[in-house]
């Protein structure tokens, strides 16, 4: 068994959810409880294998790809079926494997309108395959396929189970991301042809990418910049995000925030910088500028919101700005911070969306001015909201800090050849962004949790405290936010070797 998992573990975690989805297709739609259990069981099985990988992973060689699978796949275009995890992918894979079962637990009694758990849960499992596959794929075509597999289930999730404007939001999400993907695949193909590499394997491409001209490199990276940048999303490609988040059902928002956005930042680190370190240098100042604009702009956008869920959505723009700033420095400090920031944002913002969903269930509105006094009516939920707001604003001692502060730190001394003046300016502006973050999050907390309930909800018995299902789904996230906050080494020590392998090429 161990040998089998060593050889095929990554394929197992990737395709097990798909197998679960296929099984569910055979079960009649009316067996709702069975569907829920099959879906949850499948994702838990995948998670268990993920934990096994976590224990079997060789941390002393975290810079190397491990559990590799390398089989011929589409010989016609020299694309191979290559999978592997290193210190950068591992935390993201485990995050994905954790988030999905938690979402399924939450869905046990939170299937959004218009119901049909069978279809809903199948979509989540397909999503899981796409997400895990993207993080373990080491071949560009394979990566691209998984990257696109994610798109459709999310499109249907928003379009069918979403809010009032679901049609608009889902089409916008779909077309916008598709547009980015188109540029991305053009870049991938051009990269392959221009380098003359033996295959679409990332390692092959990285080894032979030095030969392409700087103009070509710049344009190819530009295609990826737009493709990944839309997914992240970085300013000014972010406008699909607030709509998608606001309209998506709760677990859709959670998965979107916790994992989907990271496909973009992960792509920057693994493919953008990993394969094209020199063009990355040319693009770094641009990325740093848009990232910094995103930090301030996202925060201002938050301050203008009247809807809690839309506010949280906008905060992602600001938070991903810190991640992108870390990446733009091209240094080991910065990229480590970025990977930490991805996971921390996944945990924290995922948790905030869970809360928003549960509050919507209770109040049937998320309009901030109608809410208030959550701490009176549901004290535990109120405290969790306070805890997450503190984590989200980057409080030291909670996970959010370790994505933010080291990214700001890294900007003081970017990689060789990058303008110190520019990056230090970005550093100061980014630091100012932390004030705005405190502003909009505490303002949200004050208006929703403090005070006394508004008249219309005063004697509303629907507003109950955290239910057991919710506790089960949330507790792992809350504990991780706390543990990673106090023991950041748990993650930095894993990512650092792999990040250094990348930053040694970029001169960071």
């Amino acid at each position, binding site marked *: 068994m161990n040998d089998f998992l060593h050889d095929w573990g990554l394929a197992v975690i990737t395709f097990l959810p798909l197998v679960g989805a296929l099984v569910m297709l055979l079960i009649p739609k009316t067996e709702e409880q069975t569907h829920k259990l099959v879906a949850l069981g499948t994702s838990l099985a995948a998670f268990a294998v993920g934990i096994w990988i976590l224990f079997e992973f060789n941390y002393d060689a975290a810079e190397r790809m491990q559990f590799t699978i390398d089989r011929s796949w589409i010989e016609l275009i020299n694309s191979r079926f290559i999978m592997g995890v290193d210190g950068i992918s591992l935390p993201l894979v485990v995050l994905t494997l954790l988030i999905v079962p938690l979402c399924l637990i939450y869905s046990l009694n939170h299937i959004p309108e218009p119901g*049909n758990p069978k279809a809903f849960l199948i979509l989540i499992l397909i999503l899981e395959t796409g997400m895990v596959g993207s993080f373990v794929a080491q071949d560009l075509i394979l990566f691209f396929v998984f990257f696109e597999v994610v798109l459709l289930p999310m499109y249907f999730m928003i379009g069918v189970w979403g809010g009032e404007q679901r049609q608009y939001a889902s089409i916008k999400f779909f077309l916008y991301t598709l547009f980015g993907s188109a540029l991305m*695949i053009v870049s991938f193909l051009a990269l392959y042809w221009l380098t003359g590499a033996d295959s679409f394997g990332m390692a092959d491409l990285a080894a032979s990418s030095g030969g*392409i001209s700087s103009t070509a490199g710049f344009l190819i990276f530009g295609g990826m910049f737009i493709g990944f940048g839309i997914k992240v999303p970085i300013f000014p490609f972010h406008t699909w995000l607030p709509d998608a988040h606001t309209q998506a059902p709760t677990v859709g928002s959670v998965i979107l925030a916790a994992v989907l956005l990271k496909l973009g930042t992960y792509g920057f680190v693994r493919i953008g910088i990993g394969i094209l370190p020199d063009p990355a240098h040319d693009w770094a100042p641009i990325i740093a500028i848009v990232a910094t604009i995103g930090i301030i702009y996202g925060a201002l956008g938050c301050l203008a919101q009247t809807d809690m869920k839309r506010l949280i959505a906008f905060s992602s723009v600001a938070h991903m700005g810190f991640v992108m700033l870390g990446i733009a420095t091209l240094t080991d400090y910065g990229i480590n911070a970025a990977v930490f920031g991805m996971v921390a944002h996944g945990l924290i913002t995922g948790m905030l969306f869970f809360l928003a969903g549960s509050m919507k269930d209770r109040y049937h509105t998320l309009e901030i001015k109608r809410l208030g006094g959550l701490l*009176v009516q549901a004290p535990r939920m109120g405290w969790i909201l306070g805890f997450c707001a503190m984590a989200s604003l980057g409080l030291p001692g909670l996970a959010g*800090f370790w994505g933010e502060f080291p990214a700001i730190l890294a900007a003081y001394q970017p990689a060789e050849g990058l303008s110190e003046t520019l990056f230090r300016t970005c550093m100061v502006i980014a630091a100012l962004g932390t004030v705005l973050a405190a502003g909009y999050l505490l303002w949200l907390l004050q208006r929703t949790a403090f005070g006394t309930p508004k008249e219309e909800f005063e004697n509303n018995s629907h507003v109950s405290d955290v239910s057991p299902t919710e506790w089960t789904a949330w507790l792992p996230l809350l504990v991780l936010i706390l543990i990673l906050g106090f023991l950041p080494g748990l993650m930095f020590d894993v990512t650092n070797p792999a990040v250094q392998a990348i930053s040694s090429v970029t001169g960071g």
Partner: protein
Amino acid sequence: MDWFLTHAWIIPALPALGFVLILLFGKRFLGPTRAHWIGVPLIAVAFVLSICTGVAWIQHTNDPHGGPLADVQEECSRTVQATGSEEPAEHADEGPTEGHAAARGRSVAQEDHGTEATTTQEGGEEHAEAEKHHDTQPVVRCVSWFDTGDHSFTIGTLVDGQAVMLLFVVTLISLLVHLYSTDYVNGDRRYTHYYAFLSLFTSSMLFFVLAENTLQMMVGWELVGVCSFALIGHWWEEKPNSDAALKAFITNRVGDVGLIVGVIVLFFGAGQSFSIIDINIGANEGLMNHTVLLVASCCLITAVMSKSGQFVLHTWLPDAMAGPTPVSALIHAATMVVAGIYMVGRLYPVFFEGLAIGGSSINLLALVGGVTAVFGALLAFVQKDIKKVLAYSTVSQLGFMVTALGVGAWTAAMFHLFTHAMFKACLFLGAGSLSHASHHSFNMVDDMGGLRRVMPRTYWTYLIGTLALAGIIPFAGFWSKDEILAGTGSANEGVGNYHFALVMLLIGAFCTAAYMTRTIWYAFYNGEYKGHGHPHESGPVITWPLIVLAALTCVIWLVNIPTKFFFDWRPPESFTLKFEHYVEPVGPFFPGSSDNFTHAEFNGWIAALSLLVAGGGLLAGYLFYWKRALKPLENLAEKSRLAAFFKNILVNKYYFDWLYTDVIVHAVKKPIAAAAYWFNQKVLDGVVDGAGKTAVASGRFVYDKIDQGVIDGVVNGTAVVATESGGELRRTQTGRVQQYAALFFAAAAILAGIFVLVIG
């Protein structure tokens, strides 16, 4: 005894444990009124441990061994790693110290607890200075926290005189406040929550105090801020309270920008190290660029301005009085607000070199402190709320400490921090006792009066606190304030010649004495009691902490008796300057060895002047309120338009709140945020929507001819899926989407081909 120095981490761990236990079991197992059963014993143990650590430190200082870095664990400091056994020569040739057999050693940090393996070497000849000042040996212990980049970052404890002093202050005041609260907060709607956060605050503060590196300091710094937020907003049902909490947190965040940038600048300046020892040695021995130090100190001063309530970021502190009174005593007077002072003291070489404190006559620290000392004190005159008077008094006194640091009087600043903690806690708890008696009001003008007869214990302790704060001999405040005044070097030899600072502090001292007399008049005299109900003396649980603190106020000055006194009287040397001896560091991590660094001696003229000024303030208050002898000054604002103008400025707190809340915050929250959002929706999203609509329109046109609307099909698919089964979903995907995918790849390949042909 060294065990206490190397295991100091236990002290913050105890209240942290208390927090967790109270949170998990407080309400469930102890009921809603007994959370202190967990909180009080743990903080009491922490207090005992702090005293033991203090005693251990005294023994450690009396019994030096090895060089100044002998007790720094190698992993914690890059300097120690780099020098290894090659200790810089200048620290080795100081002679053996007076009365202590241990000789100085050359080697550093190759042993665990320092005592066994020190290679002993005879130093050079004895010289007079070395007799009195041998190097201090901070005890630094750490463990690896995380690795990023090429460096491993550590977390640990730095125990030295400064840390030990604050450990004592924090645990003492915290213990008294814990006890006091069992009565004062009794019956509160969130008693358990109150004790949980009190414990968490104590733990965070101790964590901050013991921090071995600046990163760790930052963590503690923010955590105390959160506890402050939670406790200011303790009664969050009322909007003014949550407003005050938000104001405190966000104002502090503004200062934290300075902290973040300052810490980063120092990190790179010290060769990528957060270690306080490394930073201090780097700054002190000229290894760090002066510009770097200047930028870092200016940034860090911003942080001090917010945390320690200095102008112009002081506005949150008076509002913070919205929290329960024991919290005001502990957090917003005695401990948390001195974090800024402590941080400057910790990184003193950075400020000393960066601001060129030695031999100068003005710098940013002295300016900020001096301005705050006076302008904070002036605001106290127009307050009706007794807690607000004390809050502005805290602002002003913190200004004294900042000035002291600015003029190079490090020990004076620390000593004032030490004494101020005692008498200010006494005053705040006294104000709490007053309000406890007078129907929970803090309005001394309208709801108190004549309370001296019914509340004798509160009255006497409050009076002692007032005299100490005013700086009347022999109470603690006189001695520490006098050291600061002498330290300005204006009239005698000091680090520099800070005339401006001396003038400002004297004005501040006059005002302090006068406004404190005012509070005594309104609360304890002023005819009969004016509030509701029948006032009564508070119970023993409330009055005993007052008595303890008042007693300490009377005696703690003994720890730092000056070497000479009025009329050149010299106390026996073995009693003098103990505080300075055990608290002030000596060694490469402190500017003490700098040529400019001298210790101002007691100066009879300055002391007499300060007594005269303070006495003048008391007398003015006495004449004005008791004797009504200053009739022309009564109701001055009604008689003179100029006076009315100034009073209006004071009542409006110099319009800072208006500027911050109504102008800046409002501008960011409303027009600027709205403009950004308008840009987002109309411009950016407009472009996206426009592009999307055009694409859909042209797509529909094209595909209508080839296929019956791929995009439309997908759109319609959603509606179908909503109603039909999963089978329909499958058909939609396999049918339409495959075609779309094929087209998509073909188009991409063609574009890429064109690209390769053109560029390649």
